[in-house]
């Protein structure tokens, strides 16, 4: 029973640890990408200078808009030519008769507002097209949210299981010491005095259960970091650095283990101390 309850804590915290590492890294990636999220508003060619300025003003007034930058079509063409390198030379022909649009580049205060702001802009006059993250950002957010909820539900279920197993283990000790507790209450020992040894037992079971997950998650992250990080070097994505992330995670796991243990012990003693 003791083994079962410690293993329950171990399994729970192992999953909590793995889940936590994945979620934090996904969040980190999402934040990195978020910073690159922008809305590009192509201005209709029919718009004159006044119309364009009015549109810029309208966009600036929108709630949730952080910055609005104007990029004239000549600059857009330069950017295009530059980004295509040698092949871009061909586009130089267009310098005389630029087919591109003037563009407003917009950043929102909250990256998650991107879609909403973009839809509002689409309704404005002299807007040719509105482009933003093309749904990839939204998909990533959705994936993160769904996996976060699934993971949380799983973990809450496991936490309860671990807590009940610990509480049952302690209940066995309590039943074995039933007469002792009965006499303690009879001669006037306080509830906290009676509770103390069981409190300690729960605490130890919980901490004991957190040791394996801490060791496993830390070393796994250390190796995974060594292998994955170099491969990501060329991309804009980064893993969270080992130090202090893993130490913080370890602290969280040990605290969770202790909390499960204490909770379990208090649950099981409570009934025996009712007056």
């Amino acid at each position, binding site marked *: 029973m003791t083994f079962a309850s410690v293993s329950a804590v171990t399994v729970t915290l192992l999953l909590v640890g793995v889940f936590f590492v994945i979620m934090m890294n996904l969040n980190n990636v999402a934040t990195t990408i978020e910073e690159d999220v922008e809305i590009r508003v192509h201005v209709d060619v029919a718009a004159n200078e006044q119309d364009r300025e009015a549109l810029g003003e309208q966009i600036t007034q929108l709630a949730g808009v952080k910055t609005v930058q104007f990029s004239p079509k000549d600059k857009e063409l330069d950017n295009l030519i530059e980004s295509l390198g040698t092949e871009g030379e061909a586009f130089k022909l267009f310098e005389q008769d630029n087919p591109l649009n003037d563009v407003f580049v917009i950043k929102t205060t909250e990256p998650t507002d991107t879609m909403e702001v973009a839809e509002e802009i689409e309704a404005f006059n002299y807007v040719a097209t509105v482009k933003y993250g093309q749904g990839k950002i939204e998909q990533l957010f959705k994936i993160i949210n769904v996996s976060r909820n699934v993971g949380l539900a799983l973990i809450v279920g496991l936490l309860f299981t671990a807590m009940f197993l610990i509480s049952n283990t302690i209940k066995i000790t309590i039943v074995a010491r039933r*007469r*002792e507790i*009965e*006499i*303690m*209450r*009879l*001669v*006037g*020992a*306080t*509830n906290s*005095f*009676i509770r103390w040894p069981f409190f300690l037992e729960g605490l130890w079971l919980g901490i004991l259960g957190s040791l394996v997950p801490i060791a496993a998650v830390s070393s796994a992250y250390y190796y995974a970091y060594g292998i994955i990080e170099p491969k990501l070097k060329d991309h804009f994505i980064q893993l969270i650095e080992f130090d202090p992330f893993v130490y913080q995670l370890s602290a969280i796991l040990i605290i969770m283990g202790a909390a499960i243990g204490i909770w379990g012990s208090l649950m099981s003693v409570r009934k025996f101390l009712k*007056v």
Partner: protein
Amino acid sequence: MIEMQDVYKTYRNGVTAANGLNIKIDAGEFLYVVGPSGAGKSTFIKMMYREVRPTSGTITINGVNLSKLRDSKVPLLRRNIGVVFQDFKLLNTLNVYENVAFALEVIEEQPSYIKKRVMETLELVGLKNKARMLPTELSGGEQQRVSIARSIVNAPKVVIADEPTGNLDPDTSWDIMNVFEEINMRGTTIVMATHNKDIVNTIKHRVVAIEGGRIARDQQKGDYGYEA
């Protein structure tokens, strides 16, 4: 010292075990509680140390109103009340000395005080020379002496005993009664539920007869009043 006013107790199964109890017990008294089985004697006794809470009515002990006593203060109440049972309730893994010391250790008394008090108390109950023996190595009468020693080691003002001689043969019962007499002589109030007719009729004290949760008779130097 102990006072009950209109005390009623109906258990959750609907049984009424106290049906309007009124009684006043003075400091230093020795009170026998008699009556048929199931009359409510144990309930009467359990309400005094708040093992059972009355459905209604007031119980006062040493000026403390038990119905107003917070749960957290119950341990303090119990330190002033010694309780003795028919089945001794000793810890078989502990020796005589340790069983008695247990009562002081769990209320966190000083070790030097514990040693002194335990030895004094074992001497009073006549078990000083058996301090290192286990309960299983003792006779029933000796086990009950250990239990009595444990109940008085903290010098309570009241000792409550629920059929303390119920499991003992007649000779041993008289010995145990002598221990209670000695304790009472030193000023401790004693409330004792008993079925022992000879003892009640010989060692005369106040007798309260409970029948159907009511006090049917309350008599100074009374008789047992029932056929054995």
